[in-house]
């Protein structure tokens, strides 16, 4: 029986007829060739979120981002005018990686006046211009103006820093994020600067982990043991239905109820949650800041009093989760091969005013890790079996609409790329 209303068509999936309702195959998640196409068709052509402006607090603050998915590394920096700029992380002289520390393949961050290459000491201003060449007179007709760092399109939306590796891109990140992005503009992300960031190597295709977090159908089953016995059985018999789904272009969102913050009956949660008034859904008491009383229109779009969380799946690999008690969470899935990726989960809270608030946030962060470990490991089990190809067609329910949409979107980008980019340059792989 339905607990929440669905669109007139009878289901969320049929509300978006282009999605179809047939079984799906996951060839897009188990094929090395498809991943090579995704690198070109998706990760080299769409806006990728690489961080937040708070990571660049002052002039000269920088961080690097390794993008295996796009075959490059970028360095993001705040220049002397306060602008956020992005460059390919490569010295124009002999191609050395410009910014790194000890381990060339690891990301780094810091603050500098200019970038100096470790190899021959060429130096670049924060705006990317080459300003010093060691023994310049040894070179032949070298005009430093011709050898600035290779820029990467970089834009900031709501404090989130995005790069687009396609030099021919003409779409702003704001336009790219469309209606769903517009609907959350104005949320007080900038007030939430207390950060916990987790990273894990996951043995699955990047889309499969998005699948896991883009539906809550699994939650009452996979995470059954995280609730007390009777509550767990009740949750399973009730099942899961979302309040609302939205799809716009390549992006999607699911809006969900969340009776856990605080729970109606405190006896259903762990003893420490009762004492600290916090848990998976975050601290039960909202922080006292501007901007949470009247939320942007795209947050809790059904305007449900039982609303708990909105999850935005921003194509390709960025998820943004806004929680009713006034904090947010981001997920990033950075592919490293067709069946591996680096998962990053980052929690953002309003800075705590005292130890109690601090411990509430600690409990939310610790709880997040417990759940994510279960989810990540389950994914390896999924990847290994669909790679067997003994079964190739899988049904998806209405509560799994965002998965259907994600895989369809990835396949469409690849198909479009194959049409426009001929001959298709498929590397042989290493």
């Amino acid at each position, binding site marked *: 029986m339905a607990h929440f209303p669905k669109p007139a068509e009878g289901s969320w999936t049929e509300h978006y007829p282009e999605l179809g309702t047939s079984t799906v195959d996951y060839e897009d998640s188990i094929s090395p060739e498809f991943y090579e196409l995704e690198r070109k068709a998706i990760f080299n052509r769409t806006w990728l979120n690489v961080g937040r402006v708070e990571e660049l607090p002052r002039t000269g603050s920088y961080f690097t981002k390794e993008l295996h998915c796009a075959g490059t590394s970028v360095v993001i920096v705040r220049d002397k005018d306060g602008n956020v700029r992005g460059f390919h992380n490569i010295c124009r002289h002999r191609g050395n990686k410009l910014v790194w520390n000890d381990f060339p393949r690891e990301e780094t961050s810091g603050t500098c006046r200019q970038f100096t290459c470790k190899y021959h000491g060429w130096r670049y201003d924060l705006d990317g211009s080459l300003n010093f060449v060691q023994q310049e007179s040894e070179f032949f007709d070298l005009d430093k103006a011709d050898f600035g760092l290779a820029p990467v399109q970089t834009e900031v939306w709501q404090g989130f820093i995005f790069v687009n590796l396609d030099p021919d891109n003409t779409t702003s990140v704001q336009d790219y994020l469309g209606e769903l992005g517009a609907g959350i503009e104005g949320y007080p992300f900038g007030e939430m600067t*207390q*950060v*916990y*960031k*987790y*990273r*894990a190597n*996951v043995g699955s295709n990047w889309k499969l982990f998005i699948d896991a977090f883009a539906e809550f159908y699994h939650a009452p089953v996979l995470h059954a*043991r*995280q609730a007390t016995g009777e509550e767990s059985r009740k949750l399973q018999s009730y099942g899961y239905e979302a309040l609302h789904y939205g799809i716009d272009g390549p992006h999607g969102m699911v809006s969900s109820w969340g009776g856990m913050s605080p729970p109606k009956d405190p006896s259903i949660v*762990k*003893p*420490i949650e009762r*004492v*600290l008034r916090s848990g998976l859904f975050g601290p039960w008491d909202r922080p006292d800041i501007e901007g949470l009383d009247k939320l942007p229109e795209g947050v809790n779009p059904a305007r449900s009093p039982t609303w708990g969380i909105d999850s935005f799946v921003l194509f390709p690999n960025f998820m943004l989760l806004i929680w009713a008690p006034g904090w947010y969470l981001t997920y990033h899935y950075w592919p490293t091969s067709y069946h591996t990726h680096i*998962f*990053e*989960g*980052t929690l953002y809270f309003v800075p*705590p*005013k*005292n*130890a*109690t608030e*601090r*411990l509430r*946030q*600690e*409990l939310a*962060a*610790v*709880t997040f*890790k*417990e759940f*994510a*470990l*279960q989810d*990540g*490991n*389950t994914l*390896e089990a999924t990847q290994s079996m669909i790679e067997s190809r003994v079964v190739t067609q899988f049904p998806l329910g209405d509560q799994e609409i965002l998965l259907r949409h994600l895989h369809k979107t990835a396949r469409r980008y690849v198909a479009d790329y194959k049409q426009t980019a001929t001959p298709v340059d498929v590397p042989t792989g290493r």
Partner: protein
Amino acid sequence: MTTSLPADFADLEPFSDWCLATEAERYAKRLSSSMEEMQAFYDGAFPRLEEALGYLDELDLGALPEDAGQLLTLCYSLVNVSFPVEVWRQARVPDSGAASMDVVVEPAV
């Protein structure tokens, strides 16, 4: 030597090896501890949690005296072992196999 806990919490000194500043240290100690050790720590510290909150909330979180800071890290460890003790009955997250997840950014305090 590590600083001891505030005098009001001297009864928790036997658990001062749980005063660990980073999540990585706390999680590693959880994985290397027996359920008996974690249960003993939980049984000792959990009943004092509300008093600890009351004590710490009187102080400036950004400038905690060393002994109060120790007490706070002890509370972080209590949060971490609450899952094995209250839910899992084992140190590791069930069905998490060899999976691991590392903290790459955490608050300074």
